[in-house]
């Protein structure tokens, strides 16, 4: 015990006992049937949470998992705000929107628990990346279980933390079981700390039931991270004395194993180790029991959220970015001048202007800023590394990982722009986009914002089935995510700027045939989408459609490439063409004004007809204006083919749009 004062030791003891008693209290509330939902508890693992958090400062951060009550109490959340959260109360730490698995409080340095087992690791690495980029001294400790090691997010997040020496402590609580499955069944090498070496950093296995050993190892890890020698992997050996979740009787844990670990209970061991007297224990225990009893009584009568607040906290309402930044934008030129730019050039200019105006803006992705490289797959970021080498983060091929890092950095106030080379790769990143970026604001009761811009090229362009899909359909129905799809350079730049200033996650789809990419990255069959782009700072607001041609007979609704094809047929049929442009939210005002006038709507979509964005627009029109006749022109329900003859048959073109429009006109005349 030398070197530790009595107050510190008693503090560790009290914190561990508080966790044990909190968990037991909650368990008995469940057994009584008083509490809703489910729980994943941590009795037996108290020393890991308390030992790690004792080594962190108030400005340091943790990420946690579905088994996060101990982490939360160790990081300083109050038992009351947690008990209220468990009872689903508005006064809970996440206003009742999170619950047991998403316990957290940003003002206390704890991100709401991430219930996808390794999902918090890339997020934590991104938080650490933001601290490094902004020269802040903070470190992040990311708690996860042995079960997380097998997920790709572990590998991708850990690898990037290693490449960039991030101040990240990877805290693996190895309690021998992922749910009911023993580590030896799912790992050839179950010495988890040894994995650190293969990534090129330091790992350490520690007795996780010895709070002082955990504390001292964590102190060393914190010191390494603050000195720029991170990350560090701590494998803490511990044991869960309770079920995986509340109905689990733990029959898979052998009795002798349970008894052996019970002999090494972290609280009882520390009581002996630190010579905690019976009087000291009694004093602490009485205080805890009284506090918890009060907490439960208060939580039982705490106010529940009003049902009218169901849809609160999905989006940030007011843009968090100071408008003053616009004024400081050094790229703004004399009023009135424009240049003819393609989409790739316009986006590049928009990104450069935003980076100049706001030091928090950075790009992260594959091949985006390598000298002699391409500037991303379609030249959008070409050359930006010359001026902003520190803010062009070239990643490994690890979409799940770097979208997680981007989300974590955004959560800490950065303004990342993450892009995939081909939209098809968004499937790899979708856990981070959908489960984290889009939901964290809601899960945290409105305390997190994720100002993250994502870019993804789509469209059938001679590359077969896996570099060609139109991905819009998979992301337009995600609560908390805005989706745009510009058809020209003016919109692309304006929407990008609006997205960066919006404060919410925004996914921008871009079409490969519309970029106007030059040189080696030029596309065969490209369509001219260039615009006269103002030299002044401007935005195109999110959530607004644009009428591209006024007409009387029929409304044609399209986005991306299909806008151009629709325009080719519009004159002969006197069609009104609407560039939907914002796929979430959809601009029903503009669409409604048009379809009420024409009485007919043809929705044109590149991509399979079943379950497309067109289906959503059709349903929306039918619900709002039932007398409007609606039809769709889309691709058949087949993967994108390679051979040009089939690809051309797959993708709607001007002829098919014209046929669709003629059909609806004939039907309604007949």
């Amino acid at each position, binding site marked *: 015990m030398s070197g530790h004062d009595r107050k510190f030791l008693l503090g560790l003891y009290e914190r561990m006992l508080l966790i044990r008693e909190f968990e037991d209290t909650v368990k*008995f509330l*469940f*057994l009584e049937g008083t509490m809703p939902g489910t729980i994943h508890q941590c009795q037996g693992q108290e020393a890991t949470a308390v030992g790690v958090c004792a080594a962190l400062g108030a400005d340091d951060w943790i990420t946690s998992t579905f088994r996060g009550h101990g982490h939360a109490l160790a990081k300083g959340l109050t038992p009351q705000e947690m008990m209220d959260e468990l009872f689903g109360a508005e006064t809970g730490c996440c206003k009742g929107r999170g619950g047991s698995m998403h316990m957290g409080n940003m003002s206390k340095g704890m991100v709401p628990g991430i219930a996808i087992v390794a999902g918090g690791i890339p997020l934590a690495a991104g938080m650490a990346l933001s601290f490094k980029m902004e020269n802040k001294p903070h470190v992040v400790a990311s708690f996860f279980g042995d079960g997380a090691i097998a997920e790709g997010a572990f590998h991708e997040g850990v690898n990037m933390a290693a490449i960039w020496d991030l101040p990240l402590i990877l805290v693996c609580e190895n309690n021998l079981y992922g749910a009911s499955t023993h580590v030896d069944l799912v790992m050839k090498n179950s010495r988890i700390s040894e994995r650190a070496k293969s990534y090129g950093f330091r790992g350490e296995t520690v007795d996780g039931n010895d709070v002082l050993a955990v504390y001292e190892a964590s102190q060393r890890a914190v010191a390494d991270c603050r000195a720029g020698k991170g990350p560090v992997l701590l494998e803490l050996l511990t044991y869960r004395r309770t079920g995986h979740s509340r109905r689990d009787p733990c029959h898979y844990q052998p009795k002798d194993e349970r008894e052996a670990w019970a002999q090494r209970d972290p609280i009882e061991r520390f009581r002996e180790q630190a010579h905690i007297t019976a009087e000291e224990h009694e004093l602490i225990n009485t205080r805890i029991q009284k506090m918890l009893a009060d907490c439960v009584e208060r939580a039982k009568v705490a106010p529940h959220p009003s049902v009218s607040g169901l849809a609160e906290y999905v989006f940030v309402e007011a843009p968090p970015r100071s408008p003053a930044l616009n004024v400081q934008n050094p790229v703004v030129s004399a009023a009135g001048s424009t240049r003819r730019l393609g989409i790739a050039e316009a986006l590049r200019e928009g990104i450069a202007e935003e980076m100049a105006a706001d030091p928090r803006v950075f790009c992260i992705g594959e091949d985006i800023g390598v000298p002699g490289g391409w500037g991303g797959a379609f030249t959008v970021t070409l050359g930006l590394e010359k001026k902003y080498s520190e803010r062009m983060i070239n990643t490994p091929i690890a979409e799940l990982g770097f979208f997680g890092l981007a989300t974590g950095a955004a959560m800490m106030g950065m303004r990342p722009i993450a892009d995939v080379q081909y939209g098809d790769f968004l499937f790899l990143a979708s856990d981070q986009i959908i489960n984290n970026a889009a939901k964290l604001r809601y899960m945290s009761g409105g305390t997190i914002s994720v100002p993250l811009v994502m870019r993804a090229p789509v469209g059938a362009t001679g590359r077969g089935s896996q570099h060609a899909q139109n991905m819009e359909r998979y992301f337009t129905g995600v609560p908390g995510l805005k989706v745009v799809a510009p058809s020209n350079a003016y919109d692309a730049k304006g929407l990008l700027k609006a997205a960066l200033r919006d404060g919410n996650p925004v996914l921008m789809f871009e079409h490969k045939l519309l970029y106007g990419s030059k040189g080696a990255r030029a596309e065969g069959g490209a369509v001219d989408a260039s615009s006269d782009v103002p030299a002044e700072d401007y935005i195109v607001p999110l959530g607004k459609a644009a009428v591209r041609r006024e007409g009387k007979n029929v409304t044609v609704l399209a986005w991306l490439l299909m806008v151009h094809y629709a325009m080719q047929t519009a004159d002969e049929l006197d069609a009104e063409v609407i560039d939907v442009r914002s796929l979430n939210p959809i601009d029903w005002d503009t669409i409604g004004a048009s379809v009420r006038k024409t009485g007919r709507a043809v929705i044109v979509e590149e991509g399979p007809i079943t379950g497309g964005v067109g289906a959503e627009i059709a349903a929306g029109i039918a619900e709002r204006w039932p007398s409007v006749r609606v039809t769709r022109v889309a691709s058949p329900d087949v993967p994108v083919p390679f051979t040009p003859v089939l690809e051309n048959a797959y993708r709607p073109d001007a002829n098919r749009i014209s046929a669709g429009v003629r059909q609806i006109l004939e039907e309604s005349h007949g």
Partner: protein
Amino acid sequence: MEVNMKMPDLATNEGVELGITRWLANVGDAVKRGQALLEIETDKAVQEVECIANGTLQTIHVQSGEKVPVGTVIATIKVS
């Protein structure tokens, strides 16, 4: 003070009745929070149920072999 202990919600299917296979303490015994008080059979497994308070087991309301819905009072503990 007395505390009523209810049949816990340990079934994996809604609306299933849970059977008590045996009591592990007798009326009049001193009991502690956390000790195994009875054994029940769910639709998934036989498992022990822990006592929710310190005190004396005053009354057993549901005998071994009987099945009751979740939430039924099964025992009363006189809290010490």
